[in-house]
C-alpha cells in the first residue's frame, strides 16, 4: 500500500499544523497580533489539508487499508469547518474545546498511521486448493 506512505506524510503534516494553532492562539492572547495573522490562514489551511487527507485516506481504504482513517479524516474535516466558523464568530466557549479535540484526533490519527496495524491489509489472500 503505497498510499499508506502518502497518508503518513499528510497526517503528520496535518498534526504538526494543528499543534501550532494553540501555540499561536496563546501568543495572540499574550498580545501578539502577528500570531493571529498566522492562526487564521493556518486554520483555513488545515481544512484544505483535511480535504487532501480525505482523498489519500480514501485511496488507502480502497487499496486494502482500513476505512476508519477516511472516517476519522471526515470527522476532522467537519470539526475544522465548524472550528473556522466558531473562530470567526468569536464563540470561544466552543472554539477552545473543539480545538483541543481536533489536536487530539489529528495527533492520534498521525500516530496510528505509523503503527503496525495501519500496514495490515483488511483482506488477506487465501490460497484455494486446486
Amino acid at each position, binding site marked *: 500500500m503505497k498510499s499508506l506512505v502518502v497518508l503518513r506524510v499528510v497526517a503528520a503534516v496535518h498534526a504538526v499544523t494543528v499543534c501550532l494553532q*494553540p501555540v499561536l492562539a496563546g501568543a495572540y492572547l499574550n498580545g501578539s497580533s502577528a500570531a493571529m495573522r498566522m492562526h487564521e490562514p493556518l486554520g483555513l489551511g488545515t481544512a484544505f489539508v483535511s480535504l487532501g487527507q480525505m482523498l489519500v485516506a480514501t485511496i488507502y481504504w480502497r487499496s486494502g487499508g482500513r476505512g476508519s482513517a477516511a472516517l476519522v479524516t471526515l470527522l476532522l474535516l467537519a470539526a475544522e469547518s465548524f472550528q473556522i466558523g466558531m473562530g470567526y464568530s*468569536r464563540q470561544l466557549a466552543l472554539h477552545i474545546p473543539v480545538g483541543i479535540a481536533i489536536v487530539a484526533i489529528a495527533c492520534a490519527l498521525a500516530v496510528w498511521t505509523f503503527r503496525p496495524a495501519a500496514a495490515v491489509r483488511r483482506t488477506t489472500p487465501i490460497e484455494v486448493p486446486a
Partner: protein
Amino acid sequence: MTVAPPAAAKQFTYRRPRVTLALLRIPLIIHAGLVVAQPILAGYFLSGEADAMAAHGPIGSSLFLIAMIQLFAAILYFWPGGGRAWPALITVGLIVAELTQVVFGYQQNFAVHVPLGTAIVITAVWLTVWSFRPGARRGRRQEVKK
C-alpha cells in the same frame, strides 16, 4: 561454533492487574472529567463570562492533588498489581505539567498556558481511554524467582 547447553528454562508469569486497574480508573475518570472542563470554562471566560474563572482557577489549582491520588493508584497498579510502570511515570509528568500550568495561568502567560493545557487534556484523556482498552489488562512479564 559450539551451542550453549540449554540453561534451566526461565519461568515467567503474566499477572493480570484487575482490582488495581479498577482502582486506577476511578481517579483517571475524575481527573479526565475535570481536565476536560478546564478549556470549556476558559472559553466561557474569554467569551465574557467572568464567573467561569471562579471555577477554572480552583479546579486548576486542585488538579495536581487528584493527579497525586492517581499516582498512588498507578503505583499500586504496577506493584502489587503487575501492570505497566509507564502510567505512573506519565502521571508524574502530569503533576509537573499541572503545577507549571497553574503558575503560567496566574502569570497570564497564555503562550505557555494554552498549548500546555492542550497537552494536559490530551494526555489525561488518552490515559483514561487506554485504561479501558485490553492492553491495560495485560500484565507485564515477570520472571519467577526460584
